[in-house]
């Protein structure tokens, strides 16, 4: 087991900068994910850690040892490739034994270790099978066993689940996590799937265009995105453009279309007066409300006569360790912010309804329960006509202002 440290790593391919000024440290036994869209540099970073690419600048350290230019076969990392890269001409046994043979281990010990590794992934019954006769999930397990058999100090996983079908992916994910905890091995996991990263990782590094966007626990990344890219990449997010018209110590006045709103911001002084900004909020932090009398639903009385059901916060509020940058209402700013919007469509997504609407011509969405939908829109909400004026209520604490 080892710590991994990257110090201002840069890698160019021709004129294209694949990875730029990347610095982070991974603790011993940590499950660390590199998350980002394709082409963000996550795989290049992993390949530099494995030794397949040499960084142009910077250093890579395993514990105290500088391994920046060390040959891949002398790094003692175990890697699981996206397509598994099992040797098609060898059996399961020979695949798993490959790394041990490279270490010139005596045969009895090889047999012992191969057996142990296959036991970990519950594949002992397949020892003598040619790998070409295994299913995708079984190949994935053999690849993992092969990487673990050499007792690596670091486990490198390059989108190992992306070739499995959805159901298998979920169960393998849980098993991977269990195995990693059991072995306590430092693990670096490359993925473009935010759900995987959130479910598996101790910490996540979000990469975009070769640059580190944010690094933190899944909760921090989800609830306190540092910029709009992270906020939009992790989960989904709405963005509405606005302009700063005034600023107090912790409060910004922002114009959106014709509407003026007050918005609590942790560090308002970084925004200039007149600066263009993006207001970002997640669909689960919004509800849309119809004006009274606009529904054919005779029972619909709109919200003024009903107690307000607050938008869902998700589960995040129940977790005590999380520090929200914008906690509750501050200095005379309301709990909710109301904006005028235009209705588009309602879409059923299984557990929820996804309401599509526009604010200042920007497409947005809200995630509402059926109960909320009936209460705020009337029971005929599925037949609402596009273009109808609505009100959009956003939980003030969940609204984030980014520089545009």
């Amino acid at each position, binding site marked *: 087991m080892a710590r991994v440290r990257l110090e201002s790593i840069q890698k160019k391919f021709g004129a294209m900068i694949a990875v730029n000024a990347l610095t982070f440290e991974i603790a011993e036994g940590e499950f660390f994910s590199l998350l980002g869209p394709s082409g963000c540099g996550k795989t290049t970073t992993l390949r530099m850690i*494995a*030794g*397949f690419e*040499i960084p142009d600048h910077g*250093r890579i350290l395993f514990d105290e040892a*500088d391994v*920046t*230019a*060390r*040959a*891949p*076969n*002398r*790094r*003692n*990392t*175990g*890697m699981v*490739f*996206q*397509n*598994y*890269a*099992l*040797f*098609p*001409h060898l059996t399961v046994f020979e695949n798993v034994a*490959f*790394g041990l*043979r*490279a*270490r010139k281990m005596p045969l009895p010990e090889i047999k012992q270790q191969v057996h142990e590794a296959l036991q970990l992934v519950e594949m002992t019954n397949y020892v003598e099978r040619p*790998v*070409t006769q295994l299913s995708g999930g079984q*190949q994935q397990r053999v690849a993992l066993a*092969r*990487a673990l058999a*050499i007792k690596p100090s670091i486990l*490198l996983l390059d989108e190992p689940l992306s070739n499995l079908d959805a159901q298998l992916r979920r169960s393998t994910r849980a098993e991977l996590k269990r195995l990693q905890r059991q072995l306590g091995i430092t693990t670096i996991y490359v993925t473009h799937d935010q759900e995987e990263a959130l479910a598996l990782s101790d910490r996540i590094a979000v990469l975009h265009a070769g640059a580190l966007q944010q690094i933190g626990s899944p909760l921090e990344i989800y609830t306190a995105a540092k910029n709009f890219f992270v906020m939009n990449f992790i989960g989904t997010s709405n963005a509405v453009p606005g302009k700063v018209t005034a600023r107090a110590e912790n409060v910004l006045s922002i114009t959106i279309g014709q509407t003026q709103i007050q918005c609590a911001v942790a560090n308002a002084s970084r925004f200039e007066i007149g600066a263009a900004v993006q207001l970002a909020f997640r669909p689960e932090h919004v509800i849309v409300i119809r004006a009274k009398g606009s529904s054919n639903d005779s029972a619909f009385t709109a919200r003024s006569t009903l107690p307000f059901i607050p938008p869902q916060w998700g589960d995040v509020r129940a977790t005590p360790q999380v520090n929200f940058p914008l906690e509750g209402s501050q200095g005379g700013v309301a709990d909710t912010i109301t904006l005028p919007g235009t209705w588009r469509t309602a879409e059923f997504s299984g557990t929820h309804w996804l309401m599509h609407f526009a604010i200042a011509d920007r497409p947005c969405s809200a995630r509402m329960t059926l109960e909320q939908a009936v209460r705020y829109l009337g029971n005929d909400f599925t037949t609402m006509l596009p273009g109808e004026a609505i009100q959009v209520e956003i939980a003030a604490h969940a609204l984030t202002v980014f520089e545009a």
Partner: protein
Amino acid sequence: MRVTDHLKRNRLSWLALAGLFLLLSLVIYLPLIELFAESLKENGRWSFINFQRFFDFNNPAYLRALWGSIAISVLTVIGSAIVGVPLAILFSRFQFPGRKVFGVLVTLPVLLPPLVGVLAFYFLMGETGIIPRVLQKTLGLQSAPLVMRGVPAILLVHIYSFYVFFYLFARNALAGLDRSLEEAASGLGASRSMLWRKVIFPQLQPALLGAGMLVFMNSMASFTAPYMFGGAWRFLSLEIYNAKLNGDLALANTQAVILASFSLLFLLLMRWYGRDHPTARGSKGVALPPRRVTQAWQKVLLAGIGSVLIVLLLLPQLTLVLIAFVKNGTWTWQILPEQFTFENFVSVFTSRDAAEPWRNSLWMSALATVCGAVVAMLAAYFTARPRHGRAWSHLLDASVMLPWAVPGTVIAMALIILFDEPYWFTAGNILIGSAAILPLAYFIRHLPIQFRAIVAAFTQLDPALEEAAQNLGAHWWMRFRRVLLPLLLPGIITGGMMAFVIALGEFVSSILLYTYSNRPLSIAIFSELRLFNLGSAAAYSVLLTVLIGLIMWLSQKYGGDRDEGLSG
């Protein structure tokens, strides 16, 4: 520490790359450059006199040879297309009795060494061939009819061997066509002829272009057919040989340069043209099964065409087999041979003299193939895994493929010009006249085939496999031995077998380079023919054909496309 580690890792591979380029420079570039340089010299001084001699419009004998080569090549391309493309359509679009058997037999001629093919036609339809004699006798004519000589004979032999390129290319292209495009066109109301003109043919164009290029270059380079049937006609490949025989090396040289230039020019032209005509590929159209012919008269017609085809294809071979059993010197004025014997076959195993060409061809071809496999493997590695930059791998690719574009006569001439004196890299030996020159020529000529086969195997090989091996701690030798070699072996075998088989029957450069002590099979066949030992010549040819068939069968069985790749 960090930099040196990285450099050390690269040093070995840079060294290998440099060694490879050195070798290719010595055996490919240096001879060709020397050939070119010598053509620009007169009595050791720079001069254009040789080219002025060639392009002398007052005495256009040499120009006529160039014109003859081009004309025969164009005619061959047209003829091969006329035979090959309809056959491809027939076999890929229609289901009829005997389709499978015919389909295999149709590709037969490409396996034959050119000399064997030419010989077969010579016995069948040549000056004293069976068909003209039989016709003359039965019809009671003054002179033998249907005698093939000159341009028609060459054309016939060329088409017989080269239509296979059109057939294979067109058949592959037809199999890869997206049928939904045809369905769409039909849905839009296109007639059958419009469908072919506007939809199918434009999509076949790149394949036909490729086949046309191959056929053109092969017939430009063709030596054997013009040599046997040329008569008064002049062809460039033949003129080179004649000039060399007459001791006019300067002329032979210059003609070789001109022939090579035309071949390369044509290749570049076609490449350039092909680049502007890409096709939409990679469609997901499902290939429909061939149309079943139902009506009786259609069945009869197609099976009839097939049978005629088979007779035409096999007749030359059967003639060879027949002649192989003829006692030497007994078939002179008779219409058909009358005395038969096993002598011609037995002597190969009993007479030292008859067995020697076999021994020579086998060891020279084997040596060339083994060396070729090693060099091709190394070159394919650097081409498929451009670890030192794409520029180097492109240059390497082009260098290895160069001998493919240069006619065999030219390569032989280049070797003659360069290796008539000792060099440090030949350990002070003069290679011309030594036993080493033929294996070297075979090696150079057939390196591209081996290289292509291994590159093809490489493209099916996931680079992640090598990385996985390295990640697991394997150093380069273990990666090569345990991962690369076993997975590339089918490609190495396929390419090696092809190269070996072609080398066994190689005639074009052999005839310029052989000495009596290392005379290969093709030269033995040729000299038996000259001595009018027709039976012996045919027996050599038949045995060679059988051996080639055997090797190809083995190679199909143990090499080839065993797709075991996991990655999808």
